[in-house]
């Protein structure tokens, strides 16, 4: 018997769920929508400018996966610390809507969140709880675990968050880190964004099972599989769990199943290093996390089409103006090259 749901048949996915906005405040619902659209449009801007050659650094886009970062971001409080990976624009923007800072960074400009020294793959915003992202697969998992150790030693009521992908679960460091977090009782939230792909390989070509949360079981860490495109489910679960982990100081593992619309890196869509995904993609587009929320909000009379249009226009204006400003921003001082090596 196969351990996989039929990966080609989206209807066979058993983890899909219906949105339920009933217990979430209007204010939060609108914030969710705003943030998801902001991230989508910012990444589309980046995508266009990768395509036209203005952005040179490798950009891994999370279009289609926005709900996870936004749900987690909205569940974080002051003092919580999140670490990302190569696909982290959404994690960053969910905590701070500063598209100017992100645009400057991908353009290698001085006003970037890493002063133009990092590019798309090394972004940081400690003030708002984003403690850094790096493109070495799995590398921030033990670092986030160590942030959990910090919180634990200081006896703070906070959490650390490690975002990683299904591919990172193939790295040994995940298993060492889960064991450590479990045996030391660290308040670390392991969030696996399982988008079924690691670069060009689908998960059934790399692992014997669809669900990466099975690894949590081995380390006696509680886990939950969620519909990664259902922001209300993600938010309710994360909000509650983050509160309880801040007190319990016991790690948890959240697996959010989702799908990235773009190829592994860059602007192309259905075709990723020779992998044709057009059929899957069109089905996943119907499960667009933004669309699902919009439909629900309209159905429940919490949002009108006009209000949506207005929000989108506002966002587009902000993005265009931040982009233009970023294009005109200064490049870093050449002395940074040697000045930032040591303290």
């Amino acid at each position: 018997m196969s351990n996989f749901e039929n990966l080609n048949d989206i209807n066979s996915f058993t983890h899909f769920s219906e949105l339920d906005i009933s217990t979430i405040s209007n204010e939060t619902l609108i914030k969710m929508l705003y943030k998801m659209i902001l991230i989508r449009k910012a990444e589309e801007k980046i995508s266009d400018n990768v395509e036209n050659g203005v952005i040179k650094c490798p950009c891994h886009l999370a279009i289609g996966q926005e709900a996870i970062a936004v749900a987690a971001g909205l569940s974080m409080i002051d003092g919580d610390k999140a670490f990302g990976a190569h696909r982290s624009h959404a994690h960053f923007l969910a905590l701070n809507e500063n598209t100017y800072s992100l645009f400057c960074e991908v353009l290698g400009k001085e006003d970037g969140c890493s002063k133009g020294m990092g590019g798309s793959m090394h972004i940081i915003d400690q003030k708002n709880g984003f403690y850094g992202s790096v493109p070495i697969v799995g590398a921030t998992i033990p670092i986030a675990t160590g942030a959990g150790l910090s919180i634990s030693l200081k006896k703070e009521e906070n959490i650390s968050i490690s975002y990683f992908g299904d591919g990172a679960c193939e790295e040994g460091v995940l298993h060492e880190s889960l064991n450590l977090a479990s045996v030391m009782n660290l308040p670390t939230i392991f969030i696996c964004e399982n988008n079924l792909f690691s670069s060009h390989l689908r998960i059934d070509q790399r692992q014997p099972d669809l669900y990466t949360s099975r690894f949590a079981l081995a380390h006696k860490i509680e886990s939950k599989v969620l519909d990664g495109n259902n922001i209300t489910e993600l938010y309710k679960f994360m909000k509650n769990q983050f509160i309880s982990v801040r007190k319990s100081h016991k790690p948890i593992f959240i697996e959010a199943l989702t799908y990235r619309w773009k190829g592994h890196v860059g602007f192309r869509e259905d075709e990723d290093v020779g992998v044709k995904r057009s059929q899957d993609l069109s089905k996943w587009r119907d499960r667009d996390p933004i669309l699902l929320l919009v439909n629900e909000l309209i159905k429940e009379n919490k949002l009108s089409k006009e209000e949506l249009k207005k929000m989108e226009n506002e966002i587009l204006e902000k993005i265009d103006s931040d982009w233009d400003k970023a294009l005109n921003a200064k490049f870093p001082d050449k002395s940074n090259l040697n000045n930032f090596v040591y303290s």
Partner: protein
Amino acid sequence: MSKQIKYSKAIHEAFTYLLENHDEFFVIGQGLWSPWYVGETMKDLDKKFGKSRVIDTPVSELAVTGATIGASITGFKPLVVHPRVDFMLLAIDQIVTQAAKWRHMFGNNSSAPATFRAIINRGGEQGAQHSQSLQSWFAHIPGLKVVMPYDANDARDLLISSVLADDPVIFMDDRWLYDEVSFDKGLKLLDLKDVKPEIISTGDDLTIVGSGYTVKQIIDCKKEISKLGVEPEIIDLRILNPIDYNIILKSVEKTGRLLVVDGDWSSCGIAAEVICSVTEELNPSIFKSKPMRVTLENAPAPTSKVLEEDYYISKERIIEATKKII
């Protein structure tokens, strides 16, 4: 009456000082609750300061090192112990690709001031996988500092300053030095940035540079070298990256001769680095003879005692090299 201090005791004093005076310090690593791994250098620290600040761990070098780095990014000045350099290699990504680059790649907005204590533990027929030191490897990496004390006072003071520094530091102590004693100068708080190579004894005829255990070996050869009619100037590098060359350059300008002794392999090593940097800087005419180096044989460490004798640096090899130079 002069007070003496043993190298291993000096390391213990450093830990005691840090645990007593710095809440932002903790130490983590394999074997910290057992004297078997770290000798006397950390004896009973867990009992005195508690097992939450002196933390023993699962056999997970990579995650434990990463967690140490994570703690350093989020407000601590922690130290992770690797009872052998060989074990630390499982954590290379975290040390070389994460910690060393953290400040630079985030534009000085963050840093990873963790200390990695790598114990050099070799000889005794332990063989190829329990004998490496690899200081040159680590010294190759911009963003990492590499500290290698010879003197017991340094073992204490440089351990403290490594931990308190705002940069990631590899601190390498050598078990062969643990029973060595020095005159105890008393604990001195140093800023790692100000620490430079030190002249251990002055001489006019030959500059001999060593680091860690090789400094002791050079000193042990001093009498015999003097008998050859030359006075060596012995320099202890103390920090292998970044190296401050001023003192070495001045010395070689005076002596015209340079011998570097490094307890690691020769290829792309610290000895090569020192010789190259000195010859690049100085006018060729000041050299009275070709610079030389004494290093390990270019092979994995053997087990058999007979082969070990040839493999490791001996007094004889240092004397032999000295004779060739003068």
